[in-house]
């Protein structure tokens, strides 16, 4: 009926239990195979509905779909970036030494890595409801910034996402319960600095990878 692109769940670049003890196997399994999959299923459905409305010239219907598309597309994009910027703690990629250019920029901006991490965690803990914490680079000024986004809002187009941390309760609750501060500390043991460096030194297209490829194919 249509040529609308179908998004599919990306494979995790590691096993479900590979981020233990910082993120449990049960959390990773549910988070990837259920939550992320649901965003993709809903996104595909809403894009199909939008395509039908577009072909019918129904502008009102298309407008009514925007919020749902923003939410589910954001869920797909944010989770895809998140899986990629994590790695097993035993992997060499989780050493900040893998990100010499970025760490130098972080030191210039915040003084040292641990001060930056504290800033980031303060931002995470200040979220009022579901959302994400991000290290981003402003595309105009080149400056590094720590920002948060609500629910499944993506990083604004004027900024390049480098590192994202999911702070929805489903990201940690089965393991950390209400102790979200402990999750925010643990997550740093499984950050893939190699990928974050690649995003910092590369173009926006490199950051979004296959997500950009699918966009170009529409």
């Amino acid at each position, binding site marked *: 009926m249509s040529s609308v692109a179908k998004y599919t769940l990306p494979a995790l670049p590691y096993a479900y239990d590979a981020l233990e003890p910082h993120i449990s196997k049960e959390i990773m399994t*549910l988070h990837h195979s*259920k*939550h992320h999959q*649901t965003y993709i299923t809903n996104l595909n459905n809403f894009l199909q509905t939008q395509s039908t409305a577009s072909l019918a010239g129904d502008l009102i219907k298309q407008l009514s779909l925007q*919020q749902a598309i923003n*939410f589910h597309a954001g869920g797909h994009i944010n989770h895809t970036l998140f899986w990629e910027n994590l790695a097993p703690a035993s992997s060499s990629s989780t050493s900040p030494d893998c990100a010499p250019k970025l760490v130098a920029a972080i030191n210039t901006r915040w003084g040292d890595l641990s001060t930056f991490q504290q800033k980031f965690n303060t931002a995470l803990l200040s979220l*009022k*409801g*579901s*959302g994400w914490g991000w290290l981003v680079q402003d595309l105009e000024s080149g400056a590094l910034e720590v920002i948060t986004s*609500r*629910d*499944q809002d993506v990083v604004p187009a004027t900024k390049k996402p480098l590192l994202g941390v999911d702070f*929805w*309760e*489903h990201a940690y*609750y*089965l393991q950390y*319960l*209400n102790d979200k501060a402990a999750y925010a500390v643990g997550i740093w043991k499984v950050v893939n600095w190699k990928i974050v460096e690649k995003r910092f030194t590369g173009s926006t297209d490199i950051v979004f990878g296959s997500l950009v490829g699918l966009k170009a194919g529409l």
Partner: protein
Amino acid sequence: MSATLLRTSTAARSVLRSGAPKRAASAAATTFVRGKATLPDLPYDYGALEPSISGKIMELHHKNHHQTYVNSFNAASEQLAEAGAKGDVAASVALQPLINFHGGGHINHSLFWENLAPSKNGGGGEPSGALKSAIETNYGSFDAFKGKFNTALAGIQGSGWAWLVKDNETGQIGIRTYANQDPVVGKFTPLLGVDAWEHAYYLQYQNRKAEYFGAIWDVINWKTVESRLK
């Protein structure tokens, strides 16, 4: 809502009796804050809402989550009082999001606990009287109302609540959702609230939130909901 907050002094005594967290207790001892918020006692045991809501969820939700809203609201209120005393308008305005979030969290949870009841103690069933009539007039039937309410719950994008409210201008009832801890204040009176934050159901239902939304109806305290309509 006002009834909940007016019972503060009784609740305060029971909280102190049962050993309130140190910080809250010492703050209460050293600072004069009129109407300091305290965690209300649950009107039933933690396990009393099983199998709809597990005892572990209820315990964490009440003892940890609700308590944190209470503590953070009191802290923000103190800062607000200090800013007010100094005439620091900018600081007062900057504190509003924290007051709204933590104050809303306290109000919403207090209303939620009260509009739930164990099924062996009056929970579940159907509303009666004026509320029953209003629901049937607006939604056709109680089942149709539940369907609409569950659709509203499922449509929340992120953390939030669904409420059956009364419009204070028209007197009509309606279903509304609120993001995060935004409280039902102003134009609307809260009648029935259901918490759709993940912490309200995740340990038991994980991503199957529709099952939680289905099971909550077995523990709704319609007597309380009806009394709020008056």
